[in-house]
């Protein structure tokens, strides 16, 4: 065979295999109805079991996520997280502005004082 030495499954882990045999491949109806929904639920369940919320969030922010069916949940979590970050940022900004204003006020007062002093 003309395959490179790295071939023949090198580096393939069970996750590589599962994502192909469960999520890919030709779908035809069997006599034993393994509802595709069941299989999808299963894989989602597998992911949820092993994925911490943090990882799920990371999974949700990747640039290639062009498959809308993949993870509405992960996207929602990401949006929530961004919302929270925005709110934190806004709050922090407001606090800093107040602090800067107060400090500028104090500096102006000091400078006024200095100008008057000499």
């Amino acid at each position: 065979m003309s395959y490179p030495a790295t071939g023949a499954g090198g580096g393939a882990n069970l996750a590589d295999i599962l994502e192909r045999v469960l999520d890919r491949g030709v779908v035809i109806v069997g006599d034993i109805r393994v509802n595709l929904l069941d299989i999808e639920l299963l894989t989602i369940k597998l992911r949820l079991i092993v994925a911490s919320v943090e990882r799920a969030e990371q999974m949700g922010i990747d640039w290639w996520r062009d498959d809308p069916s993949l993870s509405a949940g992960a996207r929602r979590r990401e949006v929530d997280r961004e919302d929270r970050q925005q709110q934190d940022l806004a709050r922090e900004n407001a606090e800093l502005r107040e602090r800067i204003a107060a400090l500028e006020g104090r500096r102006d007062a000091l400078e006024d004082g200095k100008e008057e002093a000499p």
Partner: protein
Amino acid sequence: MTTPHDNGRLTYAYAVLRSGARPPAGLLGIGEAPVHTVTEGPLAALVSTVPAAEFDQPQVHERLEDLAWLETTARAHRRVVDEAAAEVGVLPLRLVTVYRDEDSVRAVLTANAERFERLLARLDGRLEWGVKAYARAPEERRPAEGHEPTAPPAPGAESGREFLRRRLRDRKVRDSARQESDGLARAVHDTLTQAAEESRLHRPQDPKLAEAVAASGAADADGHAPTGTRAAVTRGPNVLNGAYLVRREQAGEFAERVGELAARSPALRIELTGPWAPYSFTDLPEEAP
């Protein structure tokens, strides 16, 4: 090629191929059952029998929830499909495509003949390669020393602004490390897409999934030993999980390209898997049956 009718057994279908194709002899499927072909007109299916006790309803649903059973079944399925694909053009079927008997398989081959023949023609002589990239630990991406705030020389107002700037800078460093590896991954994907006939992006792998399945410990009976699982603990986040459809005769060239990219991208750890049957490329647009 004969399958005596047996009430305790069902027929499990692994892949569809052309009836003239000669898959490797001696393939063993789920439960080490011998694999054979069921032929109908120009098409054939690779099948073996499986115990109804595991694969009939409703118990099969329960089995699917059992990770050890799932692993054994998935590996056996993959072994049959990929060993056949190494020799002949095949359409991999999804895991657990099961029939009462071989007549049902023939009926399915007839009913889907047009779609199967079109896909086989499209995928003939091509195999799938998987490329995964992981971000390496970003020690070298720490902010430069000069950026660290010095003792505040200015009046109080300056340190407030400085504080804000520093916060923004920290945020940017974090974001840019992620953006950098995403950008590199995108460049790798673009380059490989040009080197391949078709490409697909899978969702990035959760390292915990890889670890969990590696730790689940079902015996690896296939010849495709998973050499990558050992490294799972030291991997950074998976920033690229791509599948590429490559002509058989261009496999060496493609692997070389991957090697070049790996050498050129020290911030990424790049892994090549395959050859796989074209699992990720059986979704070509089609009309309703």
